[in-house]
């Protein structure tokens, strides 16, 4: 996916270190989605995806940073969110993106479900950490 981090407005960021920070991150994304004028369904999908990815970051990456910004592209407006952690990384991304596969005791739908909830989804992972970037476009 395109590198929206470099193009859009300066992002609002938030560090996630515990589960109440995940709630704060969700609120940050919701506020931005409302301001961008995303429809209620799109807002809900984006916020749910952010919730999944934020919690993944907390559980598997030991916390990290969430950055969110409004982005424009070819006349449409959307919300870009980035989740960056310094955890051990994901060994097999394909496997992690399989429905029902879980490394913990969750449902195994967080990562794969989040990908289905947004319009653009990018993931990079290595031994130094994992970065997930998502975009949800309005209309």
């Amino acid at each position, binding site marked *: 996916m395109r590198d929206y981090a470099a193009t859009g407005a300066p992002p609002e960021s938030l560090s996630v270190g515990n*589960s109440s920070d995940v*709630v704060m991150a*969700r609120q940050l994304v*919701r506020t931005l989605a409302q301001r961008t004028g995303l429809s*209620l*369904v799109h*807002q*809900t*999908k984006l*916020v*749910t995806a952010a*919730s*999944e990815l934020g*919690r993944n970051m907390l559980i598997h990456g030991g916390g990290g940073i969430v950055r969110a910004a409004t982005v424009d592209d070819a006349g449409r407006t959307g919300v870009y969110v980035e989740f960056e952690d310094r955890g051990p990384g994901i060994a097999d991304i394909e496997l992690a993106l399989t*429905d029902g596969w879980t490394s913990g005791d*969750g*449902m195994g*739908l*967080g990562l*794969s*479900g*989040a990908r*289905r*909830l947004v319009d653009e989804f990018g993931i990079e992972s290595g031994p130094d950490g994992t970065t997930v970037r998502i975009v949800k476009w309005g209309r």
Partner: protein
Amino acid sequence: MPVATDSNTQRLVETLTARRDVFVGQWADTVGEALQGRLSAAELGRELGELYEAVLQGLASGGLSGRGEAFGEVRSLLIELSRNRARQGFTPTETARSVFALKEVLEPSLTGDAEGARVYLQLARLLDDLGLLTAEAYVRTREEIISSQAEQLLELSTPVVKLWDGVVGVPLVGTLDSARTQVVMEKLLQTLVDSDSTHAIIDITGVPTVDTQVAQHLLKTVLAARMMGAQCTISGIRPQIAQTIVALGIEFGDVPTIASLSDALRQAVKEVAQEADDDVRGLL
């Protein structure tokens, strides 16, 4: 920390004893000014008077170590003072100033000569230490208040209500984490037993985000209720939530879900009536 010689402490104790009323009065005035009348002068005077006596006794019997045994009384008074201030909503600065103000009061009358200045500096070190102690106690009290509020909130936000004969409802508001799920589950199961109910309705109208964690917690709660023989329905599924759940790929299996609480209640009441009917027929 250099140990105070007896003569130093003695002079300090003499000065503090001789001008007790003046110092306590000035101290109370200085602190009262900073607090802008939010604490009555009488109360402040009594509080600081006690503290002054305790400090004096500590100095007389055991030197200048604020964490030492001689200052036990001072410490317990200060901790009480900080707790009260924290509860009454004063800031940490205002609380610590109650101690530091004594330095301002004593400075002019002690620093007249070189020896006095040295004594003053030693006393200042003691008061700094006591000031830190109040700040610590203040923070501890605030933490206690916050954690007790969090617990209260947890209790408050998870009511289980009897909606009809044999039907209980759980209106959920906010986020559903593990701690709340536990509270909800316990309350629901207990209410099912206490009210002899066979139907439970969990309403998620007030839950803004239903992600996999929330769904998993909901399913566990439903499963537990079912193990006790109750029928469990999830109501309050709004259109955007339904679409999100489908896109996420969560399956609620055979757990009945319904859009509105009123429809869920109507359904449950009908089933309860049906069961009662069956029971009567069985007897005949």
